[in-house]
């Protein structure tokens, strides 16, 4: 049931406090045929996830007001209904330690800024396919 819901959903959660990056990400999400569900900070993302788990994937900025992207991902990996949602971390930092921490927290893919649309498109496709693959493996 969970698998069917996750794969059928075309909704992608986008959480970013920067209006430029947010517009760019949501446009590419739409161009790829998905519906972006947009929040502007980490607290709003957590609130939304408390009542809504119907997302094919999630894209988080690392540094956001109130709650950082990495904390949201950590939270998602502790909740059964959220742990299946693959998550992308976007950040301006090119720090290997941060990348390692993100993967340890449960990030599926990591995209450093600056990025071009083609890079985001590739990462988005990878994100969704990894999520779908994990669903199929679970059966």
């Amino acid at each position: 049931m969970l698998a069917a819901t996750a794969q059928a959903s075309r909704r992608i959660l986008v959480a970013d406090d920067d209006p430029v990056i947010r517009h760019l990400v949501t446009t590419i999400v739409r161009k790829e045929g998905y519906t972006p569900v947009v929040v502007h900070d980490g607290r709003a993302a957590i609130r939304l996830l408390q009542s809504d788990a119907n997302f094919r994937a999630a894209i988080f900025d690392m540094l956001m007001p109130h709650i950082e992207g990495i904390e949201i991902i950590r939270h998602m990996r502790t909740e059964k209904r959220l742990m299946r949602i693959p998550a992308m971390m976007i950040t301006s930092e090119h720090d290997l330690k941060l990348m390692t921490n993100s993967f340890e927290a449960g990030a599926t893919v990591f995209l450093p800024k600056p990025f071009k649309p083609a890079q985001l498109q590739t990462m988005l496709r990878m994100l969704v396919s990894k999520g779908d693959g994990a669903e199929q493996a679970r059966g």
Partner: protein
Amino acid sequence: MLIDSEKFEVALNEKGVLPASAGAFSAPADVVDMEMLASFGEAQIDGEPDIVVELIDLYVTDVAAKMSALRGALDSSDGPALRRLAHCLRGSSGNLGAHRVAALCKELEYVGGDDWRPAAVGLLLGLERELARVEMIFAAERRRRT
């Protein structure tokens, strides 16, 4: 108190506070990586407004708000707010190809020590000048596209 920005800048230069890049003459290609900016055309959805124009408009509006907040953070000696704002501005600037603005933001983000304000003042001044150049180039690109 009103400050004569040119005199202030000369004084900062003499003290070595202004970043070396801040006073240099800049060719447009040095100010904005136009190839990076143009790459966002790849995200264009048919029938929708020009995404590059939309991104430029969002950026210019956001920069005005962030610069005002940065000045406020400096006035109130709020280092954490200053660093957070500089970090946020770095992300969008770098992504739109304004790499020198991004570099100045990174310097501002990492100003530290007990006496961080003079360095922050110099960097903010450099940032204002660099942003003026970026906005001129963005305005020209916007006109070309509309």
